[in-house]
């Protein structure tokens, strides 16, 4: 019998969030007391403060709520420079909003509000990477 701990169980909440994103999913926590759904990196229910949370991977697809395209990017984003949008999107069938980076967007005309996007991966350089759906 192995004495090695199960790596999956020792992941921090952020590591688990990243692992889910790499499968195209968003890790969420559902409060078993009040039913509130929040991102999986929050440790206690932000509504009722309950500690019993059910971790669930939600499909990483949703609609753009808002976004921006920046002329000056922070360090580390120079390579994608002026051709990405920082996006807040609402996951389908939930009220949960998540933010990420959508590379290849150069003008607001490329991304009307309500556009469909989905999680592609968690990029070590760029964070939560999104893909635009047609």
């Amino acid at each position, binding site marked *: 019998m192995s004495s090695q701990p199960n790596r999956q169980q020792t992941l921090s909440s952020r590591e688990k969030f990243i692992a889910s994103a790499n499968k195209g999913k968003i890790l969420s926590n559902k409060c078993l007391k009040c039913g509130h759904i929040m991102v999986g990196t929050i440790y206690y229910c932000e509504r009722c403060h309950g500690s019993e949370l059910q971790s669930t991977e939600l499909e990483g697809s949703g609609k753009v709520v808002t976004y*921006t395209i920046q002329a*000056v990017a*922070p360090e580390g984003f120079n390579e994608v420079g002026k051709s990405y949008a*920082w996006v*807040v999107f609402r996951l389908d069938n939930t009220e949960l909003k998540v933010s990420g*980076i959508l590379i290849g967007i150069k003008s607001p005309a490329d991304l009307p509000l309500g556009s469909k996007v989905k999680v592609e991966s968690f990029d070590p350089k*760029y*964070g939560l990477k999104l893909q635009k759906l047609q």
Partner: protein
Amino acid sequence: MTNRVCVLGAGSTRYGKLDENIIEIALAASRDAISSAGISPGDIQAGYISNVFGVTDKQVHMAPVIMSNLGIPYVPGLTIESACGSGSIMFREAYANIAAGFYDCVLALGVEKITHTGTIQSTTLFSYCSDFFYEGGNGASFPGLFASIARNYMATHKANEEDLAYVAVKNHENGILNPKAHVRKEITVDDVLKSPVVASPLKLYDCCPFSDGASAVILCNEAFAKKSNRQYVEVIGSGRGASPAAVQGRDDITTIPSTVNAANQAYKMAGITPKDIDFAEVHDCFTIAEIIDIEDLGFFQKGTAARAVREGATRRNGEIPINPSGGLKSKGHPIGATGVGQVVEVFEQFTGKAGERTVKNGEIALTHNFGATGASAAVHIFKKVE
């Protein structure tokens, strides 16, 4: 029963690109405040210092360095950081310690030096003030975060880019009268709309500048203030609030819960309503922020501020003058100092030192300042004492 708290003196450096070391900037404002209050450094029983990026000028643990250089090395100091809201949040702690009776007289000083780092580094450093895992780490800058808020606001409340431009024009109109303002330049709506896009839909003139500067006030209890035989201003309301750190965590992106909660506390403590405020200094880091602030502070119904600004309601002679100092937009935004600078403006307005930008018949004023996209905020209300 808590003690009444008063502002007995105030001082500020010019805001802008300053060549001096951060400690020299801090000391200049402190000396002005001490002189304005007519006290000696020996009267100061504690120092509260707000700063964010001291590390870029090779100084953290700033409070004891400042106290030592004021000749009071055995007086305790505390350095506080809350991003762009550091000044008002530090002011609240200074206020609370006087109110609680721990001290009779303290120095509340905010200081920042950032312009030596350049645009890309400054943009990066500011992004560390966001919820980095969800925002800065995904490529969001601060102009970008507020641009996202602006896009959502415009879509929700049918406002447009021209509405935002009116905020910038009004604040520059005020800032031109402020000798310590960073950007003293008259601009038109057309200038704003034609300025380069920084983060769509925000353009250069929708954004405050990166500024260096320091502002300081002397806070004391009422007995100390009365004994001084000098003009002073009373703090009659104080509130603190918080919001989800990341924009994604907010149910409604067009309101900032920390502002609403802090304002409600401050109004309740002062026993007044928004209608009683004669003018306000609010956190206009970007034009959209001022639109949202003045709704969240209760001056206008949600979704109506843009129209009110267009109609002149927030100009110096309007229904509720907003940012007579020029605000962050024109006066500048040295982030550790900004919240204190707002109190300096109130002190100058109420003690006859505001010159041409004086708001007529002003007796009650409000200051509002927040950190990041409003993750933390403080609101204070002040009363002129005759």
